[in-house]
Structures are given as structure tokens and as C-alpha cells.
């Protein structure tokens, strides 16, 4: 992994090269106080002074809705039309190391058994330029789930601010190399830089394996109902989460023409497991809250080999009733 440096002032020029190379740039933008990823043209538009974006970069590979089938009925028959769901060459700039790691969780779900062409083509067409965390808050717990404020996993190029004028730029993959080679002259070889001194300090609050071992026996524990009394059953935690991948499939028509859309869904909603017969295996919120924790920290590590959580803390920050995931995990580990 090559270590380079780039002047903060040169990033505008780098953006220009990237865009003229035919790639759009998605970066955190402040919209009415919500920091969300949006297409930008200049570095000036990128938001600053925030610890973590409100919505995650997951949208770049798993949009909130996308077309998976387009069809037209003709008489008694049906004709498929070419889907217009093509991945655009993209650079995602400014995502945190935890987000970059989460995209490998998303990709693992969609590559398993039946590789998903839509997610795969978006991942192939996307380059991730991460920015290490200089600050963290009480909601962050990346170090407890195998990540870190300067972790390079998942990023193609990782920038770490050394001072007001200079970024350390670590080239991690060929994609990262391809970005640097677009503007080689803007990058200089870095001396030995103590990266960690420029990164936030995130303490380790719990042990992931310990949690994974404890959970199966806690299926019938009263902790779930107790914790989820104040949970309102909205989908915020799932939709802001960078590694939640559950989705719904919906058809929409316009006369004879129609499309089949895939869109985000959440296990927090009451209808997620509702049968047509009316039977619902998870009819109370406590069971849905349990499913969220069990899936991410017990079932997914078993099935995919990696936890379904990267400790970004978004779900706790966005929750309207302060369901703090880290606190609840600690309560679970303390419950005998």
C-alpha cells in the first residue's frame, strides 16, 4: 500500500480530472442540516464539521429504489424490455472507514448463491475515496466490531487529514491507483507519518465474539421487550444503516407498460413477516428488535462470516426515541 500526500487545495483539481474522466462524484452535502450523499461538481460543496453523515453511502450500490425488470403486455403475451438500470461510473468521496467496510457486507449478501448483477455492476463502477475520522462521538463503536477510525478496509483510496493544508493519501487498490494516476503531479511521496495520531480515539466497548456466543441462548430473554418498549417500529435504523440490505419488490404500471422495482424494507416494520393468512411470527416490537440484533450479531456472522454492523452509530443518532444500539449491546452483555 503506497503512502502519498496531497494538498487540500489540490482536491478541487483532482475532482475536475475525475469528472472529465467521465465519473460523477457523490459526496456528503448538507441539506437542511441532514448530511446526505449527493452528486457534486466542486470540493466547496462538500459538507464539513460533521462526525458522520445522516444517510450512508450504501445508496451508491443499493439505491433506495431501483428497477429490476421492465415489461410490456401485448395481447395475451408479455414482452421484456431492456432494463434501464445501468450503473454510472462513480466516485464516492468522503465516506468514513466504517462505511467503506460496510459495502463488503452488502456485497457479500448480494454475491452469495445468486450473484446480483445490479449490485455487482454498481460496485465495479464505483471507486471509494474514504476520509479517516478525526473525531468520534459516544455513538461510534467501530473498534468493537473490527474496524477503526483510520481502517483502510473497503476503501480504494483513504485520505487522512494531517493538518489544515495536507492529506495523507493511502492507495489501497488498483482503483485507488487509477484515481491517483489521473493527477499524478498533485500527489507527493509521503514520509513516515504517524497516521493514528491524526485519527480519533474510539475505545473498545465490547467483544464481538463474546456477543456472538451469548446471543443464541438469549432468544427468550425479557431484555428484548424491556429495551423495545419505547421503540415506535419505524424503519429509520434500517434505512440509515450502511449494512442493512433487506428489500421489498413492487410492480408499477402505466397502461400496458410496467416495471418491477426493488426498494428498501425494514424488519422493524410490523408487516415485514405478516402472512396473507394474518399470522405474523413477529407480532410485537420486542421480537422485531430482537431480530435486528440477532441477525446482525448472531445469524449474519454465522452465515456470512462477518457481522452485519460496522459500528457507525447512525441508527442510534437517527432514532426518534433514542434506541442506543451500543448501550443496548452492553446491557445484553451485562444481563446474566
Amino acid at each position, binding site marked *: 500500500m503506497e503512502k502519498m500526500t496531497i494538498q487540500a487545495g489540490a482536491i478541487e483539481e483532482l475532482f475536475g480530472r475525475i469528472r472529465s474522466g467521465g465519473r460523477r462524484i457523490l459526496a456528503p452535502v448538507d441539506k437542511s442540516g441532514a448530511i446526505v450523499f449527493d452528486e457534486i461538481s466542486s470540493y466547496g460543496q462538500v459538507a464539513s464539521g460533521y462526525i458522520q453523515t445522516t444517510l450512508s453511502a450504501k445508496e451508491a450500490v443499493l439505491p433506495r*429504489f431501483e*428497477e429490476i425488470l421492465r415489461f410490456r403486455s401485448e395481447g395475451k403475451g408479455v414482452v421484456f424490455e431492456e432494463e*434501464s438500470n445501468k450503473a454510472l461510473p462513480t466516485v464516492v468521496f468522503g465516506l468514513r472507514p466504517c462505511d467503506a467496510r460496510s459495502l463488503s457486507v452488502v456485497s457479500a449478501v448480494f454475491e452469495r448463491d445468486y450473484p446480483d448483477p445490479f449490485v455487482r455492476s454498481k460496485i465495479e463502477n464505483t471507486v471509494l475515496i474514504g476520509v479517516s475520522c478525526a473525531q468520534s462521538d459516544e455513538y461510534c463503536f467501530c473498534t468493537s466490531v473490527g474496524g477503526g477510525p483510520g481502517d483502510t478496509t473497503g476503501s480504494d483510496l483513504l485520505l487522512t487529514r494531517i493538518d489544515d493544508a495536507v492529506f495523507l493519501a493511502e492507495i489501497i487498490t488498483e482503483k485507488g491507483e487509477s484515481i491517483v494516476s489521473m493527477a499524478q503531479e498533485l500527489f507527493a511521496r509521503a514520509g513516515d507519518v504517524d497516521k493514528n495520531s491524526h485519527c480519533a480515539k474510539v475505545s473498545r466497548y465490547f467483544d464481538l465474539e463474546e456477543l456472538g456466543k451469548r446471543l443464541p441462548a438469549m432468544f427468550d430473554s425479557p431484555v428484548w421487550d424491556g429495551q423495545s418498549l419505547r421503540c415506535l417500529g419505524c424503519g429509520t435504523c434500517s434505512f440509515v444503516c450502511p449494512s442493512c440490505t433487506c428489500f421489498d419488490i413492487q410492480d*408499477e*404500471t*402505466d397502461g400496458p*407498460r*410496467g*416495471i418491477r*422495482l426493488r426498494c428498501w424494507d425494514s424488519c422493524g416494520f410490523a408487516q415485514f413477516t405478516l402472512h396473507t393468512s394474518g399470522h405474523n411470527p413477529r407480532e410485537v416490537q420486542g421480537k422485531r428488535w430482537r431480530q435486528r440484533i440477532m441477525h446482525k450479531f448472531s445469524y449474519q456472522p454465522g452465515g456470512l462470516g462477518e457481522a452485519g454492523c460496522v459500528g457507525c452509530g447512525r441508527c442510534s443518532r437517527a432514532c426518534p426515541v433514542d434506541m442506543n444500539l451500543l448501550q443496548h449491546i452492553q446491557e445484553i452483555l451485562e444481563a446474566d
Partner: protein
Amino acid sequence: MADFEPKIIAFVCNWCTYAGADLTGTSRIKYASNVRVVRLPCTGRIDFMLLMKAFGRGADGVIVSGCHPNDCHYTSGNFHARRRWIVFRSLIDFMGIDVRRVHFAWVSAAEGAKWADLVNRVVSEVRALGPYEGYKRLAPVRADWRTRDAG
């Protein structure tokens, strides 16, 4: 779009306006054929979601008409409807939906001519406004993917 013919959906009450429209026909009064009439028992039953669904499915204009106040077959259906339209029309205007495409009227069973005049007027006004392109492009099935408007 010189030859644009607007698609108008009319939600009418069964006892007055539908009967009025019937009278228009029996009196051989010609009126614009752009209107598609949906019959409901009373204006009190015309849910605002029906209007949203009309625009959502591609209508360019909507007419809502029923019995004059005090004529309602169910006594107070149109009174309730009137309150609903006062609130609903103001809300969708507040949200930027084009209220010039939404017309409310009282047409009694005897006012065949008024019905024809209402439809002709609405069709010409909406034809002048052109297709409700902004609303139609909200749905991805209709969105022109090059402009990617459905976002």
C-alpha cells in the same frame, strides 16, 4: 404539442351530477369527450386519494361535482365534502400541485347544460395548461430515464 388532448377524470355523485350529465346526453348537447366520468354515491364519498390516484395514473385535470348544498340525497354528504375540499385544495396548492387543474362544482340533475359548459370550460383550460408533465414524470415507470426525474 398542438394536438394535445387533455385527459380529464370527473368524479361525480350519482343522484345529481351523474343524472345531470345523463340529461346533457338526452338533450343532445355536445361537449368535449376528454372527460371520463367516475360515478360515486355522493361527493361525501369522493376521497381525496381518488384525485391523487387520478393524477398519479396520468390525468391532466380532475373535475369533482355533486349536488348543490341542501339537495344532497344523504342530507349532509356535500357539506362534509365542501369542508374537505376547502382544506384539501389549500393543502395541495400549498404543496405546489397545480390547482388550476382541479375543478369543483355543484351540478344538479336538471342542469344538463351546466354540465356540458363545465366540461368544455375545464377541457379548454387544461388544454391551455398542457399535459401535467411535472406530475407524470414523478413515477419511474413514466420517468424519462435520461432526465432521471423520478428521484
